């Protein structure tokens, strides 16, 4: 079984806006933790059933480090799509690039995160699924594959659904769906000799015109800040204060 995993390169730590009103990148960037769950699932499935894991990242050259980490965890090959025309790419452009990159190799399963830690659009994988003509199971918190079929638990507003879906298909995983492994020293050494393709738009048969950004920031202003209140030490008095506040709010 062959698996393609989308893994994003994101700013870690506290995000900041730059002068250009985009997220500041390149300071403390890394593989999005939201995507490690999918990499782990792909590794478990291929270790059990055979096949290869290809990790696809769209991002600047530095994003190769995200792929290196996935390769060190055990993925077989990486694809980095990097092109000047992709700076500021929006959800549709991202989905078109990821779909084109996925199409370059055979796959049974495509895996993404429910949402990225920096953009959190949360729709890119669904758009990719449609572009690839695939059914999808999104918000999966548990996934297994047997006899050419996915069995998954999909989160819902009130609990979860048990879902089945024939392969090929796309799934998105919630945080905690798997327990991502740490790369071993051996894994880190081996990663260096694994194939990592660097592709531009032309390699994917895409033109910059297909990917023109369709959103621009008109204004940014600080959200109204909530003034802080009072901080008190625990004790009888503090307990009475909480109860008073509840009484003032007329909820007790």
């Amino acid at each position: 079984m062959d698996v393609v995993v989308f893994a994003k390169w994101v700013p870690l730590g506290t995000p900041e806006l730059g002068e250009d009103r985009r997220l500041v990148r390149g300071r403390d960037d890394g593989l999005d933790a939201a995507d490690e769950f999918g990499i782990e699932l792909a590794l478990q499935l291929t270790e059990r059933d055979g096949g290869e894991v290809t990790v696809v990242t769209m991002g600047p050259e530095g994003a190769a480090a995200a792929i290196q980490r996935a390769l060190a965890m055990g993925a077989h090959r990486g694809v980095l799509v990097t092109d000047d025309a992709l700076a500021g790419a929006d959800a549709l452009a991202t989905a078109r690039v990821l779909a084109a990159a996925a199409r370059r190799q055979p796959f049974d399963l495509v895996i993404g995160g429910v949402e990225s830690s920096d953009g959190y659009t949360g729709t890119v994988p669904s758009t990719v699924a449609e572009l690839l003509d695939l059914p999808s199971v999104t918000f999966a918190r548990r996934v297994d594959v047997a006899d050419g079929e996915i069995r998954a638990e999909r989160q819902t507003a009130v609990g979860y659904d048990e879902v089945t879906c024939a392969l090929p298909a796309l799934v998105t995983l919630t945080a905690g769906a798997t327990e991502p492994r740490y790369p071993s020293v051996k894994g880190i050494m081996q990663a260096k000799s694994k194939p990592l393709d660097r592709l531009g738009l032309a390699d994917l048969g895409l033109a910059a015109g297909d990917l023109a950004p369709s959103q621009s920031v008109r204004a940014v202003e600080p959200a109204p800040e909530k003034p802080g209140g009072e901080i008190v030490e625990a004790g009888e008095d503090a307990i009475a204060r909480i109860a008073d506040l509840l009484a003032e709010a007329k909820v007790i």
Partner: protein
Amino acid sequence: MATVWVVAEFEGSEASGATLELLTAARQIAESVSVVAFGSGGEGLAAAVGSYGATRLVAIGDDTIVGSPRAQAAALAALAKSHGPDAILFPASYEGRDVAGRLQALTGTTLMGNAMGVISADAARTEILGGTQMVDVALEGPTPHIVLVKPRSIEAASSEGGAADVERVVPELPAGLRDATVVARHEETHAGPSLDTAQVVISGGRGLGGPEAFAMLDDLASAIGGAAVGATRAAVDAGWVPYAYQIGQTGKTVTPEVYLAAGVSGALQHIVGMKKSKRIVAINKDPEAPLMKMADLGVIGDVATVVPALTEEIRRRAGS
């Protein structure tokens, strides 16, 4: 002014709160607001959506389409092509995201996820950096512009409008669409009010130390009455409570009269989901925790002693 569509979520003849919020926003930016409802029950919404400003209800009364984001997206794309709406608004729910994402692939138009308001059919507003900055984003290029709005970002208000005109549509769908199949549904929430409507929300974080401590929060909730228990993602990821409890960027947004947080640090991603609460109380060992600083009342202490003491005090007051 523009034509705006709202994709409805409903149960029986009741539109969901998120749908009414979208209608409230839509009628402020559009001269004509239509609702699209999937499934045979959709026709029954005419009065409910009309009283929030929709003049037309497009009922796609085909029940096979209900569980299929692919078919819904295909039907919407075909309808959008023939009717030419300027914008289509979705609740940013599980289904909404699936359908909107797929619709974008079919229309090739712009999409904004996680909006918190709409300014026009060509602009929407959201918060970034954990809700510290508000951003107005221009939506450009061909229409329909697709916007997903986070539930409870907008206050729903009725317009006293009459019932919407119903248009029944039988979509022509591409043959052989493969989809996932739901084989069983499970509910994980427990008795008591839901997080969406509770007057008081008590949330537990990693500081509770384990799943057992949530029983302490349940006890406090029942002492208060009308309180719901929620959690941070740290508590959910640790498996202490189900995901349905999660409050924050990737969970629910709550706006209760009182939000009482126990052992919650107040990460940006958590705060976006609760900062519109009327009053905030935090109990934390660490006075420097961000939530302590934004709380109306921060209590420095151990949840294991403060919470039971509070429960007892509330029971004592109720008894006297």
